[in-house]
């Protein structure tokens, strides 16, 4: 029985990962940079971690940088590339209105402090970036950097990575392309090699690793200026003593979440269908904001007459966890940049919530969720 429907925000550590993490933390405490026996043991653990990740995500071991999480990876890819641009390269970034705050704020930083101009590409009603607009933009202007979210953390909308990369490369082969693939990893198969991306950012805690770990995949040792300078660890690309047990835990989580990935996805898609069927069956008025063909694990729904926060509070009192699409305090009512970019009005956004389903949920969990929402809607909604 799981009443936790907020996996998009964070997931529990996988039991097996946690067990090994504890053992390794006790055992491999030495600095992996030390050349004595103990240090070599830690170093060996990191080597194993790299092998697992390379095998699962289809990348070179040398393309892997361990970071403190998705946010650091995104910051490193964008700022690091910007710092490293040659003098005559255009200081222009193209990105979208559907990004996670980590990307949005980094883009704003580059505007403010590095003389960058940002082109913000809008979203379709279904949440994907407007591909035609993207194409027109990259064909018209030269961009040094491009960054887009692969799967939206708000709606699950999946961007057409292959087309975006192809269009961008055709327009300008020198553009460095980064994608925030945080929400996709562990849910759908991912090959870094086939993606043809220059950078991909990944967070550990969304896939059952501990918090404060993530990955930045960097194609062909592309050069960038590191964010963190120091002892030159990870080939000078991310200094700071390496946490061998943590890196290993992340690798295990990457590997485990890739196991039976297609079957798991199928199962979650069924659960989502079931949930939507129940909402109809119980005659609970609602509007699905997520696209039909988005990632099945993320579902954004708006309930007319019921503030997202009210539903969240009432569910929370019944020990059920979901997330709101926007906060309920005066200035922030109806504010959600991604949903706004999709063209939804304030009211719809204020009444929106996000469910995240996971393979560990059972149909009973889904039934309970839908029933409880029905009761709450009846009692508290004022359409």
């Amino acid at each position, binding site marked *: 029985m799981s009443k936790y429907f907020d996996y998009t925000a964070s997931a529990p550590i996988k039991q097996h990962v946690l067990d090994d993490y504890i053992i390794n933390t006790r055992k491999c405490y030495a600095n992996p940079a030390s050349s004595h026996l103990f240090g070599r043991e830690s170093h060996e653990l990191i080597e194993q971690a790299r092998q697992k990740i390379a095998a699962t995500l289809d990348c070179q071991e040398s393309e892997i940088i361990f970071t403190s999480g998705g946010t650091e990876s995104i910051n490193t890819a964008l700022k690091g590339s910007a710092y490293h641009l040659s003098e005559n390269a255009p200081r222009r970034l193209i990105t979208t209105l559907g990004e996670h705050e980590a990307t949005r704020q980094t883009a704003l930083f580059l505007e403010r402090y590095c003389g960058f101009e940002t082109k913000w590409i809008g979203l379709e009603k279904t949440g994907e970036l407007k591909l035609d607009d993207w194409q027109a933009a990259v064909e018209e202007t030269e961009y040094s950097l491009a960054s887009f979210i692969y799967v939206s953390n708000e709606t699950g909308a999946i961007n057409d990575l292959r087309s975006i990369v192809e269009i961008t490369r055709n327009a300008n082969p020198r553009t460095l392309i980064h994608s925030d693939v945080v929400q996709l990893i562990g849910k759908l198969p991912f090959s870094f090699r086939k993606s043809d991306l220059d950078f991909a950012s990944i967070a550990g805690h969304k896939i059952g690793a501990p918090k404060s770990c993530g990955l930045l995949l960097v194609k062909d040792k592309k050069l960038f200026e590191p964010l963190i300078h120091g002892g030159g660890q990870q080939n000078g690309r991310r200094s700071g003593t390496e946490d061998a047990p943590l890196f290993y835990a992340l690798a295990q989580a990457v590997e485990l979440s890739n196991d039976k990935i297609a079957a798991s996805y199928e199962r979650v898609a069924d659960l989502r269908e079931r949930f939507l069927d129940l909402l109809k069956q119980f005659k609970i008025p609602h509007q699905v904001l997520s696209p039909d063909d988005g990632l099945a694990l993320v579902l954004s729904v708006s309930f007319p007459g019921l503030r997202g926060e009210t539903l969240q509070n009432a569910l929370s009192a019944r020990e059920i966890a979901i997330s709101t699409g926007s906060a309920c305090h005066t200035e922030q009512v109806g504010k959600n940049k991604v949903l706004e970019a999709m063209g939804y009005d304030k009211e719809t956004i204020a009444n929106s919530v996000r469910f995240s389903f996971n393979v560990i949920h059972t149909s009973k969990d889904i039934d309970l969720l839908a029933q409880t929402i029905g009761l709450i809607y009846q009692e*508290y909604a004022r359409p």
Partner: protein
Amino acid sequence: MSDSNQTKLLLARIGEIALKGLNRGSFVRQLIRNIRYRINELGAFEIHEHSSRIWVRALSEDIDMNEVIDRVTDVFGIVSVSPVQELPLDYADLQAACLAYVSDILAENNKSYTFKLETRRVNKKFPLRSYDISAGLGEMLLEAFPERLTVDVHNPDLLVQVEIRESIYLYHRTISGLSGLPTGMSGKGILLLSGGIDSPVAGYMMASRGMQLDAVYFHTFPYTGPNALKKVEDLTRIIARYAGTIKFHLVDFTEAQLALVDACPENMLTVVMRRLMLLVSEKLARRQKAECLISGESLGQVASQTMEAIVATDAVTTMPVFRPLIGIDKNETIEIARRIGTYETSILPYEDCCTVFVSKHPKTHPSLLDVAIAEEKLDLETLANSVLDKIDTYPIKAYTN
């Protein structure tokens, strides 16, 4: 500075209350009770009044006197506090102590100081006169620290003060208190807390005039969440720093709120809701033996705070509603909120009264007739009584260790 931890005695000066004639005794007793309440948990103290001052003596060894000073200066009725060294009535002892005292101050940094020595001789049995003591000690200090000290009698960096009473008291630091009247001397009121910037300041202001506070919060779960409640509790905890333990009344207001939403025209919802809140608060106040209500309204600030809206709201109760911020500008309120430490909590982004229930186009000048029409389908009295059964009361203290 380090000296406050060397001395275990505080001299607290009292202002206004010294003037209160026949009530003086009870005022001072209340003030001592309030001081004792704030510092009790920090260790053992002896607190007494002598010659129009309150003396706080730490009896245990490991007491953090800086914390004691912080807490005593936050007690309404205290004008200022000085940590003092107590010495026997002996000039040789005074000389030695004064030398060590100033030496300690100078050891804190390498700066040079201008200084002045001031003596008050209340105890006329002491053989030396004030002037002789000041001159003698001043000379001694100049000789001892010729590189570091020079005299400036008008605007000294360091003012060393000596008071000759039943003992000799030596000090150089005076920390301002909040003044006002000791809490508990001016009856009891119930503060309507919303979680915004104004109501905590209103409570603070009434407490500064000696009023004991209860607080009432109307919680509309699930429209307002646990964060909103925690915020209001945190605000209450901050006010309790000044006003003493506050009895907190948590009202489950959801059902009544929904009844209003269903029966009342949208543009009158806010006024009617406030009327119901006042009515419930009044009934609660009578139960709790409080004599007034306190709210944070400021004239014309928002639609529900126009003259007409306030008149329409107040008509529901016969109890006085104190609004200490009524003529105060928002910026001034914010300044007080910052000073007393509630501002940062007040601006946390949790709903203070869920936006679902805020009228989109409220009537800004409602008449009593408008009110009567709006409440046609409502029985406010019965509704208020039913709310009264859904109140959870618990004390909120400023300090918990």
